[in-house]
């Protein structure tokens, strides 16, 4: 799977309150959360971002709360993936569970500039800056988490183990998975 889009740059320690402020947590509707995505870091972000675009941020992205509303809002806003030198651990977990691909790569995060056109190969973790021509290699994703992604997220993975059904019988969106019966 390959992602192609424009880079949106953010600083270090982008917290979950900046990604989706708690005042909007009285809902878990992805589209409503998407309208407020990154609002306290960049008020206009949800209006400017285009489907496929990529967030490139500083270290410790997603620090703070455990709210899954954060990766949900990013995914529902159309962002294809996030690149940063490191991610806060609950956000890291949530992103994989929700099927939002994230890539740890310090060099790429430092060198990519706002507006650069990027291409990311999700399987290999190769990041290419099409604007500058430079390519980068993100940290490999652990095999267990690759399995989660292949199965369509954590819940789909569990269902597959439990019911011995294939992932093709399942549809997943940012709030969960449905088994077709």
């Amino acid at each position, binding site marked *: 799977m390959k992602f192609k889009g424009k880079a949106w740059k953010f600083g270090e*320690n982008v*917290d979950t*309150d*900046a990604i989706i*402020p*708690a*005042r909007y*947590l*009285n*809902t*878990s509707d992805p589209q409503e959360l998407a309208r407020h995505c990154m*609002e*306290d*870091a960049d008020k206009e972000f949800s209006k400017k971002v285009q489907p496929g675009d990529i967030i490139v941020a500083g*270290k*410790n992205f997603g*620090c*703070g*709360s*455990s*709210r*899954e*509303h954060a*990766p949900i809002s990013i995914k529902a806003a159309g962002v294809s993936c996030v690149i940063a030198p*490191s991610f*806060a*651990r*609950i956000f890291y*977990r*949530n992103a994989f*569970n*929700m099927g939002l691909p994230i890539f740890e790569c310090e060099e790429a995060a430092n060198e990519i500039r706002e507006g650069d056109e990027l291409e990311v190969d999700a399987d290999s973790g190769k990041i290419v800056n099409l604007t500058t021509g430079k390519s980068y290699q993100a940290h490999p994703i*652990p095999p*267990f988490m690759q399995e989660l992604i292949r199965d369509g*997220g*954590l*819940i789909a993975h*569990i*269902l597959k183990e*439990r019911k011995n059904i294939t992932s093709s019988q399942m549809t997943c969106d940012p*709030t*969960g*998975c*449905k*088994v077709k*019966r």
Partner: protein
Amino acid sequence: MPRKMTIAEKILAAHADLEQVSPGELIQVDVDMALGNDITAPIAIKIVKETGIDTIFDKAKIALVADHFTPNKDIKSAEQVKVLREFAQQYGIIHYYEGGDVGVEHCLLPEKGIVLPGDVVIGADSHTCTYGALGAFATGVGSTDLAATMITGKTWFKVPESIKFVYKGELGPWVTGKDLILYTIGDIGVDGALYKAMEFTGPVIERLAMAERFTMSNMAIEAGGKAGLINPDSITLDYVKGRAQRDFKVYRSDDGAEYAKVVEYDCSKIEPQVAFPHLPENTRGISEVGNVKIDQVVIGSCTNGRIEDLRLAAQILKGRKVKKGVRLIVLPATPQIYSDALDEGLIRVFLDAGAVVGPPTCGPCLGGHMGILASGERAVATTNRNFVGRMGHPDSEVYLANPAVAAASAVLGRIASPKDL
């Protein structure tokens, strides 16, 4: 010879049914308690329902606590709590709390003996790490992880490396566990313990009361930590005795266990700390704060809403008045704490000082309700986060401090040390 292990490794190994584990290993563990609240549990419940699996792993090992936007602040919040209530009824969840039974989750569960030493606890709330103070491996996860555990009773972990913090010396006046953890975060940064387990040790910790230990473990996540553990001792067992509702096992780190790093602090040199906006790592000693005028003070939360915290605040506020123009909001963290504060006359002290005493709720800590800031306003809070917009308007500011500093600040209308009174 078996590998020497840290407390975190021992608990994880026992719950994975393994003789030993090492950092970096991916393991599946049995969960003793899985927690969700009115923000995170509705998503987990939706996921569980949509899987078509109509059983949960254990109705006694799931806790649902409606504490964030309660008493329900609006229709949407009320709908979210309704989801919890109906799920709890349908599945007979034993530990379901709302209304007059509810308290701030991380104060409520230890108080009721629902989380215990040696447990593996996951919670769809980042401050689940609070229970590390009991010597449990407790960590925050998202709603999908919670859903998976509600179905299977298990979760997966990458065994974390541990960092050992050794606190030596004597605590100065008005220096509390809150100051030790703020100082630590100020020293190592908000990602200083990223992916790692923090272990708080040393003579100062051995003398520290449970309330202050909870405060320290609570904020492990503010340094990026996966857990914040304290080895159980007689203080832990005195606290747990009479509360525990089931058997538990105590684990302690082996001498010679491996740590990624060992950090030592001379606590005699630490003064009360204040974390400036907009990160908990922006700490300064109280003597270096300068003249910062404030509009609001919040005393409460899973960090500092316990009876010991209220006693400390009342000690400062007794016979004094909150500065005109400053709003002091006191939120006892559980019904039991509220009741004790009433019996001890603390509520009278707060009311006489001109404070608003509210119900147990997370409320203003996360900018939910019951004390939201307007643009340009500043608050001193005993809470755990001071991110942009955390307590309200994106142009407002939150300064984190201990309850004594918060109370003194309410009286003087600026960030102040109790010594300034």
